[in-house]
């Protein structure tokens, strides 16, 4: 579904990604962990070209992204993204946030899009918030709307960049539950997270990033109980 080959990315002199290689299968849930500044966000943002890689290639359903930059707007519709800071559109209601993409980009009629939005809002547990502006929502509610907004485009894969890091602790659970449900429904997901419990329970594979590469990866059981590399052990020792 996604294949990443020898991905490199620098910011000025700072080499952030130094040859990332991986494959993500359909319906797989990959959790990316690692210290702050290790390039997790950069990696995730390369997957929909919010950051442009310096070299390497990313295949989505076999289509090489770097060779199809002209089609990037269409390709991005297949890749939903959820941000740490939610990034809801503050000048639009929840309903407008969710329906803007489907109406303007997928040619849905307003009523089709609204019907779908209601369904998605029900799914994320916010059925009666459609005519509210984002500023009137709590952090957890905002993030669930952001997930609904991304889902409205019918993506084939969802990218999450620390979706619960900006939340008060009591709101983390409601967002993780929505994500868990999504994973159970078979959504392909790449989740950058510090929620080790979630990674362990929901992840099919854990990716530990360090030194600009995928330092170690494997099934949660193996990574969390028996990491092969000292660096992985050190990191987990700090966060667990």
């Amino acid at each position, binding site marked *: 579904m996604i294949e990443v080959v020898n991905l490199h990315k620098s910011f000025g002199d700072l080499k952030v990604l130094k040859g990332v290689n991986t494959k993500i299968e359909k319906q797989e849930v990959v959790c990316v962990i690692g210290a702050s500044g290790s390039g997790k966000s950069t990696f995730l943002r390369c997957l929909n070209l919010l950051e442009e890689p310096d070299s390497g290639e990313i295949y989505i359903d076999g289509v090489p992204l770097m060779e199809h930059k002209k089609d990037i707007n269409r390709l991005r519709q297949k890749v939903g993204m959820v941000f740490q800071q939610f990034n*809801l559109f503050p000048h639009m209601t929840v309903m407008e946030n969710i329906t803007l993409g489907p109406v303007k980009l997928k040619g849905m009629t307003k009523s089709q899009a609204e019907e779908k939005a209601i369904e998605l809002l029900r799914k994320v547990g916010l059925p009666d918030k459609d005519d509210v502006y984002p500023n009137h929502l709590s952090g957890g509610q905002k993030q669930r709307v952001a997930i609904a907004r*991304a889902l409205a485009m019918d993506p084939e894969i969802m990218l999450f960049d620390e979706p619960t890091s900006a939340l008060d602790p009591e709101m983390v659970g409601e967002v993780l539950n929505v994500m868990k449900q999504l994973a159970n429904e078979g959504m392909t997901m790449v989740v950058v997270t510090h929620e080790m419990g979630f990674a362990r329970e929901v992840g099919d594979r854990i990716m530990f990033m360090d030194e600009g590469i995928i330092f170690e990866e494997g099934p949660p059981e193996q990574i969390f109980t028996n990491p092969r590399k000292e660096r992985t052990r050190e990191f987990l020792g700090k966060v667990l």
Partner: protein
Amino acid sequence: MNSIYKVLSDAIYYNLIREQRYLQFVQGLGISLQLTFYSAILGTIIGLVLALAKLGRIKFLEKFATLYVDVIRGTPVVVQLVLIYYAILGSSSLPKIVVASIAFGLNSGAYVCELIRAGIMAVDKGQMEAARSLGFSYSQSMAYIIIPQAVKNILPALVNEFIVLLKETAIAGYIALDDLTRAGNIVRGRTFDAYTPFILVAAIYLYITTILSWMLGKLERRLRESD
């Protein structure tokens, strides 16, 4: 008491009533307001075009806009006014108010450009990223997401620019346009009263700018409420 009364009534009589001098002020104010109005419209259009040029990705347009803004902001508006007056007057017989509107509009455009740019850049970076990640193109993201939010930043700054502009047009007398300030000058030339005409002029400017500031305050409150 009597003498103060006499001084005041004389001042009013000589500066306003005799030879219907109040008409000078009324007409001057009319000219100043018209000049501000036309310059504001022209300045807004020029500012928008320059801001688009600066934000766009066509290198030479961007360079031109940057140069334009630097030159305008780096030179006195009086000098610009006089230069444009002679440059245009040399080749046409446009009314002075048109020439002055062009000069002030060209000048204001540079400032409007910068405040539009600032208003757009003040919109959180995550907004563009969220829009792009949904699949919107750069221009769609601007149109649906960024500009509507930027307008809230820009509108108050724009009204403020118009207040500044009204006061700046006070130099229109340099090209012998009979604006409000020049009206004061003309009356002073007749009455040899150095104070009264300009105190009147100042009071009129203050009155207008106070109204505009009050409207600005209302606008800002309205915009804040809609958040």
